[in-house]
């Protein structure tokens, strides 16, 4: 038995070393593997099952879109890539477990990203940078249980505290404030650009301790589909 185990142990040792080096020094290979295991476009799979005639229509549309893309790429080369106040970043990976809701983006301190910077998607505040490395940054989203942000609500600007989680809500709204469904919730915290919309009030209720009002929020995006964000420059 022993002569069989020795080469196995050597092989396992080498494998362990290789994996350790990858984990510590080249984690980006792991992110690529994750991207491979998690197909981003499930709809593409459904499209492959389309009937022959529908496929012909899709191919024609595809050709048209390619032509439009080529035309627009020519124009895009002439446009600024992002606002001077914001920096565009791609989402690399997401927190993979049940505990947090964080994004990992491809811009870092060397690009001007600082801890606490606001992160915006389609004009809506989705989170804040909680840690920055030279070329990467981690973003805590409004769907994280630890996320807290002072906000104002509606035209009256009623104060509240955005409380993150799977179902974010605004807490600590003064009782009898005329907050109504449809009112916009916007940022009002130091370090974050003022009045960046976060979401829309869905419903209001009295807090469990009966001292305040609280409001549930709806978001017009799916955080799991976010591929690119803008990060506010400090």
């Amino acid at each position, binding site marked *: 038995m022993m002569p069989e185990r020795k080469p*196995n*142990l050597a*092989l*396992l*040792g080498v*494998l*362990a070393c290789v*994996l*350790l080096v*990858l*984990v*510590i020094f080249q*984690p*980006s*290979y*792991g*992110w690529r*593997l*994750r991207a491979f*295991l*998690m*197909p981003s476009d499930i709809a593409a799979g459904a499209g492959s099952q389309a009937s022959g005639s529908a496929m012909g229509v899709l191919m024609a549309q595809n050709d048209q879109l390619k032509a439009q893309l080529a035309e627009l790429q020519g124009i895009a080369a002439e446009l600024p890539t992002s606002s001077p106040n914001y920096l565009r970043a791609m989402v690399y*990976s*997401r*927190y*993979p*477990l*049940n*505990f*947090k809701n*964080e994004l*990992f983006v491809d811009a870092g301190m060397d690009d001007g990203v600082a801890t606490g910077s606001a992160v915006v998607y389609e004009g809506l505040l989705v989170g804040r940078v909680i*840690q920055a*490395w030279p070329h*990467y940054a*981690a973003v805590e989203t409004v769907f994280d*249980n630890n996320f807290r942000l002072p906000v104002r609500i509606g035209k009256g600007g009623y104060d509240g505290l955005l409380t993150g*989680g*799977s179902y974010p809500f605004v807490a600590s709204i003064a009782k009898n404030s005329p907050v109504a469904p449809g009112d916009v919730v916007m940022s009002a915290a130091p370090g974050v650009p003022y009045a960046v919309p976060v979401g829309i009030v869905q419903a209001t209720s009295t807090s469990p301790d009966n001292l305040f009002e609280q409001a549930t929020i709806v978001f017009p995006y799916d955080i*799991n589909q976010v591929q690119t964000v803008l990060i506010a420059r400090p």
Partner: protein
Amino acid sequence: MSFRSLIALLLIFIAASLQFLLGSAGMFTDLMLSALIAFAFLFEWPELSIYVLVAVFMIDWQPALTPTLVVFAAIPFAAYAFRKLFAWAPWAGIPLMTILGFVAFYLAIAPGMFANAAPSIVLDILGALIFGEVTFAVLMRAER
């Protein structure tokens, strides 16, 4: 590398695919952890180390080892220690260590979730119990 080792690797990839796919739909599970706890009752520590590292490599989400990952990697070894110390039958030891491991994991990383999202934790553990037992059954068949 034995047939059972290949199946174990395949099971990790299946667990990862399911975990990432469900996560992208907003349903977070820890199937990789449940698979690793089952592995702890079937493999010796050198091979278990490889599977843990493969899982950490895939689950690592930023260029630094986070406390989450360290706890994640430690739990299968705790299950392995339990197996060596108490020699429970795997069919009983795997569910027990899955429950204990997941509770310890949540307590270490986000204790507040017990108050805020207890149903989500219970669902996560139920899914892990099922996946752990399936993993064990598949590997036992692969051994024959």
